[in-house]
């Protein structure tokens, strides 16, 4: 009974992640923007493994491509590969301590960035700052907060 309406929270959180991705940031701090959409997807995949799947991540990736003006399919392939790994490891990831989890997220974000980097390399538009890679560190730092916030939200709206 309660389940159907409470799932609305999933797209709502994703929309907030999109807004954070579009939010203008001053100067060089644009390079430090955490991978919001990816982290939100990782969280939902870890906690609702039977509802989230690779296809959904791919679809979100296409939306992200259109919003950020990258090649159509670039974010889609990166997101679906990372989410595939999360689906394979979800039970293990959930058992980890927060620190271990954050380190795993850093590795996953790094992989995501690496795929984007490769695609950008193929089309000859590499990011011009080494700060590009710092995004995985900022993502790692933000992860515990995202986890706690979404965990609270999930309990309150009883999403299972």
């Amino acid at each position: 009974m309660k389940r159907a309406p409470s799932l609305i929270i999933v797209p709502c959180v994703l929309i907030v992640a999109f807004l954070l991705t579009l939010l203008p940031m001053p100067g060089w701090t644009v390079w430090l923007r955490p991978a919001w959409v990816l982290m939100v997807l990782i969280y939902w995949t870890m906690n609702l493994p039977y509802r989230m799947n690779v296809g959904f991540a791919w679809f979100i990736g296409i939306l992200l491509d259109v919003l950020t003006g990258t090649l159509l399919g670039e974010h889609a392939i990166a997101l679906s590969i990372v989410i595939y790994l999360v689906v394979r490891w979800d039970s293990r990831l959930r058992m980890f301590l927060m620190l271990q989890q954050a380190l795993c997220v850093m590795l996953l974000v790094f992989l995501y960035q690496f795929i984007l980097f490769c695609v950008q390399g193929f089309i000859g538009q590499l990011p011009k700052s080494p700060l590009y890679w710092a995004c995985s560190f900022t993502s790692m730092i933000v992860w515990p907060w995202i986890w706690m916030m979404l965990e609270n939200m999930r309990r309150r709206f009883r999403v299972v």
Partner: protein
Amino acid sequence: MFNKESQIGLRLFFLAIISIALMVTDHRTKMVNQLRTVISIPLTPLQYLVSSPIQFIDNLKNLMSTHDTLVKENFNLKAEQLLLKAQMQRYLAIESENNQLKALLKSASEVQGKVLVAEIMAVDTEPFVNQIVLDKGENENVFVGQPVLDATGVMGQVIQVMPSTSRVLLVTDPHSGVPVQNTRSGVRAIAIGDSFSGKIRLANVPQTADIRADDIFLTSGLGQRYPAGYPLGRVVSVVKDPGLQFSSILVEPAAQLDRSREVLLIWPAQKVEAKVDTKVK
């Protein structure tokens, strides 16, 4: 368990193939542009949702600036306007004289096209993508390929038009090419973006070409996309390596690509002949 996992793997495999196919078609052809526009129409509210509060805060800042600073700014602006008007008088005389001379030479006279001021929306793209989003679109007759300028120079061209927004490819993108001409020596070249350095590179310029540092390059109007005579940038370095066939020339863009808020959309004169008549003095 095994069945479920292998199913997901298969799905990933197919999605990866679709993504790669999409990326290749997007990079090589214009076929998926339509699809991109269709997807971006429902996403436009998101861009407005981010952009409007920021613009609102900016406006609020303007409202709250004190009377004193406003008076001072007003005074400065008036002085500047006077100066510009004085310069304009000279240009008007020169322009009419120029048109007269061109008429004598029986070539097409230069007339100003229609211009529209657009605002850059306060939304970020990925930092390695050289694009901006404007708040004017199909409703204001913006078209793909339209040149975009700011107060100091050429910014780029429109590559995608949505009903109320449009996307602009900046001149620093490797996919952007602008036909330019040196003001000092008249040497022509094609200026291609160099996203790695954030500058513009002149392609295939022979070692013997007369180009020095601090030369100014204007759009030449060849290629019929950018109108002639707008500044593209200033040469910052000329490297002539005897081992290479062409010299490597870097140009600093004149437009303030990361600082402007307002930009100009230009309708080249031939497209609005009827409107020009009423505007020409």
